[in-house]
């Protein structure tokens, strides 16, 4: 049976949901081996967190170069393991780090790369949603083992318990991959809300908030949702830029997207129109985003959201 190599994605010392998602995506092609790249002494602890998803084997490489040199060191190790194990495909999480690792590996091994796949077929054909989700594209790697990055939150993860075989190995890290040195790393500041690109529900605010995100945040918190913002809102300095949803910000595809006071320029739609359900609250009945709404309310967000927040809390109580 063919094998698929995945680069396990970690947040701190724990494998992320994205790791389970890429394992699930890979399992349609063949048996999944997860590569765990950990600091010295941490390999076993990291590998132990690969306990969900269709993973049959975990390969562990320990080196302090991973923490010290980041992307380039990861790419060296992944390229080395691809050479050793000749998988049918290589899958990586489509975040900034994963895409850069995949890019370097593609360049190093002269193999094709496809980014932001939302589905992968058994013959390794990848489905992508491009131009802000307005177009579906099927692509295939034509040169060597394909390396495909998989967009978070688009594959329905198989969380079945995994008992993979764990093996240790090594990989050389080249001198040129040690030219960038990381001297300090801080995890993202979590406000107790889920990560925007991974959240099942996103509540976003735009120009209509006039800078007051309290109602948007309260509604988001009642739903356990992440908070997003339109470019108009982040440009005005009302909300941190890291929360911008849109063409020049994050692309999200949650189960539910609630847009509050966002008119829906193409710029914004590009970042959210693949959401499964879309709710729009806007005072302006002409707002273009109503075209995408499964449920729309023409009304003032400050009047609509507070009773909705109370309603959700009552429903959950």
């Amino acid at each position, binding site marked *: 049976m063919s094998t698929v190599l995945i680069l396990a994605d970690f947040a701190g010392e724990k494998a992320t949901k994205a790791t389970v998602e890429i394992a699930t995506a890979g399992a349609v092609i063949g048996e999944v081996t997860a590569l765990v790249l950990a600091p010295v002494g941490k390999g076993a602890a990291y590998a132990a967190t690969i306990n969900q998803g269709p993973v049959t084997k975990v390969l562990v490489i320990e080196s302090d170069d991973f923490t010290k040199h980041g992307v380039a060191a990861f790419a060296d190790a992944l390229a080395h393991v691809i050479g050793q194990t000749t998988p049918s495909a290589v899958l990586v999480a489509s975040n900034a780090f994963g895409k850069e690792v995949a890019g370097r590996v593609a360049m190093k091994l002269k193999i094709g790369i496809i980014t932001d796949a939302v589905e992968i077929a058994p013959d390794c054909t990848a489905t992508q949603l491009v131009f802000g989700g307005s177009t579906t594209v099927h692509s295939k790697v034509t040169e060597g083992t394909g390396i495909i990055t998989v967009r978070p939150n688009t594959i329905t993860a198989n969380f079945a318990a995994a008992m993979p075989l764990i093996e240790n190995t090594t990989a050389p890290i080249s001198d040129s991959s040690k030219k960038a040195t990381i001297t300090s790393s801080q995890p993202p500041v979590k406000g107790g809300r889920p990560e925007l690109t991974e959240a099942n529900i996103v509540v976003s605010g735009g120009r209509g908030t006039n800078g007051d995100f309290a109602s948007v945040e309260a509604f988001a918190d009642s739903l356990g949702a992440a908070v997003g913002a339109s470019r108009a809102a982040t440009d005005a300095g009302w909300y941190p830029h890291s929360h911008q949803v849109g063409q020049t910000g994050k692309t999200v595809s949650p189960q539910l997207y609630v847009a509050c006071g966002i008119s829906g320029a193409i710029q914004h739609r590009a970042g959210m129109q693949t959401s499964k359900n879309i709710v729009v609250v806007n005072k302006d*009945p002409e707002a273009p985003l109503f075209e995408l709404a499964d449920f729309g309310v023409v009304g003032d967000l400050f009047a609509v959201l507070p009773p909705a927040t109370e309603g959700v809390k009552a429903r959950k109580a």
Partner: protein
Amino acid sequence: MKIAVCIKQVPDSWAEKKMIGGLLDRANVDAVLNDLDEYAVEEALRIAEAHGGNEEGGPNTVTVISMGPERATEAVRKALSMGANDAILISDAVLVGADAVVTAEVLANVIFKGEYDLVICGTESTDARMSVVPAMMSEKLGCAQLTFASKVTVDPAAKKVSITRVTEAGVDEVHGEFPCVISVVEKINEPRYPSFKGIMAAKKKTIDIRDFASTGAEFTKSWSVVIDAAPRPPRATGVVITDDGSAGQKLVDFLSEKKLI
């Protein structure tokens, strides 16, 4: 310092984009300098200005490097009108439809020959959105990758660069030496508008248009192929109500009915 800024001409981000025969239709849409590359041009100019400027005869030069059809000279001129010194545009029919690996291969070859100290890019283009070319160029050039920078500090005497890297994984302080490939995130700066003087001066600046063969790049063939592309069907029309005081509750009912709460 010799600073190179890599830019791309892209369809206007407000325009509807279409695929024709597996390729993005670039001919029939308004084309602009990629939004995110403006931050790279601005950062290059600020670094030059902080260390003696980039006027003729000064210690620094800022060269714009791009690959694309001849029409891309429009985007290149915009970067020149912001204040870059000169430009190189690699334009060749064999490069139509080039993927990220080909783009990185070609740009890296031109950069290698130009012996730049710093190569500055945006984090991604607003059309392909792959975000891989800076990392690929750094791999090809065998130099430090200092990407997703929200802050760049350069010490030309020591040939050292430090950046603050900001991604969804957190914030890192990363250091490297010349030469290196930097990508900058939006909000690192506020890109300047070209002045009238800048626009006039840009008309006289040199754009060195080169063909593929002159770059010394090894390959033109993309390593991945689009099998098919189709517009997604429009979403089914939903319900839109006007708030009469009960919309909040009706919204909750909708969420409940859809089993979202």
